[in-house]
């Protein structure tokens, strides 16, 4: 009897997790893909639209707001990618000067504990001309300073990038710091003996050694950018017009404001595709890593 239970118990314990995976992830994703091929509007209509299966997708790609969303994702990904570069520079500096390491690390990381909604609101106020950051710059003598970025459809996205960098900087710094600490300390003395300059040491030796960390950061950043929603809502609420929409904003808007389930589903499927495209290198990377680790273990 105890033998049978020791076989059954672990399997029973897995049931909730299995159920969640099958129903809430796999089933739900299939449901969304199915619905995106139907004529569903406010309520799900399960009959496939055989005359024109890609009707929702055709409409989606004819929608200017969707095109803007796709462009914004690219701009946001490239722009907030600066957070990785700045994160690396900060980490390198903190690692070299051991002074006040704890202080700076704590300070650079705190925005991460602040929700994206609060981050967005705070930067909305920082960009607000009524509150006077712009006035302050003018009073310093920089009279040409135009800090009212969020009101202009050409610059609103850059304002969001600013806030995203503020929020994410510490995270990438922490990842880079962990990467830097794992580097063999003999590198530094070897570089010194060879008379390698600081710049060359970092660009030609340290950065290539951290390529795995850089790639992880880039993948995490891209996955985050595809999901960008809260910060856009808090800073510009998509505006001016539809100039700061993102795919995630588009899906929620199509579902909640327009009440169109089929349309929202087709946009959500495109988000899944984007995530899969970003994910492919990550899967290959982990496979390569485990292979390497096994080779080392042998």
């Amino acid at each position: 009897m105890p033998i049978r239970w020791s076989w059954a118990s672990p399997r029973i314990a897995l049931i909730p997790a299995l159920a969640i995976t099958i129903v809430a992830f796999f089933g739900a994703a299939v449901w969304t893909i199915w619905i995106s091929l139907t004529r569903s509007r406010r309520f799900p209509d399960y009959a496939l639209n055989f005359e024109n299966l890609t009707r929702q997708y055709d409409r989606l790609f004819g929608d200017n707001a969707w095109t803007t969303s796709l462009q914004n994702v690219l701009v946001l990904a490239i722009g907030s990618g600066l957070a990785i570069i700045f994160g690396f520079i900060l980490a390198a500096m903190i690692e070299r000067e051991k002074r006040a390491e704890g202080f700076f690390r704590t300070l650079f990381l705190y925005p991460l504990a602040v929700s994206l909604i609060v981050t967005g609101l705070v930067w909305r106020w920082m960009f607000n001309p009524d509150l006077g950051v712009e006035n302050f710059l003018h009073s310093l003598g920089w009279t040409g300073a135009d800090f009212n970025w969020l009101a202009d459809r050409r610059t609103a996205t850059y304002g969001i990038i600013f806030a995203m960098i503020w929020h994410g900087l510490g995270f990438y710094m922490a990842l880079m710091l962990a990467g830097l600490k794992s580097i063999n300390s003999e590198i530094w003395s070897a570089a010194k003996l060879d008379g390698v300059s600081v710049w060359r040491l970092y660009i030609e030796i340290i950065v290539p050694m951290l390529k795995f960390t850089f790639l992880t950061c880039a993948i995490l950043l891209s996955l985050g950018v595809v999901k960008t929603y809260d910060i856009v809502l808090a800073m510009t609420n998509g505006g001016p017009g539809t100039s700061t929409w993102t795919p995630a904003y588009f899906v929620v808007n199509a579902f909640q404001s327009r009440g169109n389930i089929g349309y929202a589903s087709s946009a959500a499927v495109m988000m899944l595709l984007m995530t899969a495209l970003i994910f492919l290198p990550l899967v290959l990377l982990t496979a390569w890593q485990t292979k390497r680790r096994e080779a080392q273990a042998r």
Partner: protein
Amino acid sequence: MNASVSATVAAPRTAPTVRRKRRRIRGSTIAVMAFLTICAAFVSLPLYVVVVTSFKTMDQIALGEVFALPTTWTFEPWVKAWSEVCAGMTCEGVSHGFWTSMKILFPSLVLSIGISAVTGYALALWKIRWAGTFLFILFLCAFIPFQIIMIPLVVLISTIGMFGSIWAVAVVHTVLAMPLLTLIFRNFYKDIPPEIINAAIMDSGSFWRIFFEIVLPMSANIMIVVLILMITTVWNDYLIGLTFGGVGTQPMTVILANTVITSFGEVRYNVDMAAALLTAIPPLLVYFALGKFFVRGITAGAIKG
């Protein structure tokens, strides 16, 4: 030139005995510290502005000196933000949202950590066929965008009749957190020496007894990491609360966004900023109290390879 630069390369490693070298080290140190201080200012400035403004009177805010300290310190904006400020139709401050967020937080923590810890333990220490495949699928699920499963979950939860309740929000948080937490727990438990478990099985220990008597008491460290990760995720969430919470059961972030974005009439920036700070304080407290674990928590969420 080259020699002087390489001297600074070695700076942190060699004992600064020669005076000439020492001076050069200090030069580069000053430059680096100056840069770090400027970056620190960029990071802390928004918080400073918001804190300072939340204590100012509206008259002083109208003057436009954002960086100035309040001439007269007033706590009125904080009181108003807590109990009076209007979000859409209702005017009961952010306090209602605070208690809703608390009520969402606890069931979310218990459910997600309970399920994930047991699953991680079963996958790590018991021989189960397809365990590797299941872990890989969980890894994929951990990164799936919420939007792809949002609408079917709305349909499913309203079919059960839970829609608009605190439990709906808590269950969705559990679903979304389960894959990542399971991976974290599994990675922690797989390092428990198999001898301990084998001995426990010999000793007629059952699956549950081993979990509660041996494995759980060993998991204090990972529990703190996971707790921090979950508290900040659940507290800072907006979309799940907005989509699954009902009119009276919206979390604090939703109330805050409604207060600030959809406010009519004269904007009282000091009250809005006090409300934002009230929303930000709980996770910030967790961060400053448990900083080291916080870093481990977020990086555990990031690198699991």
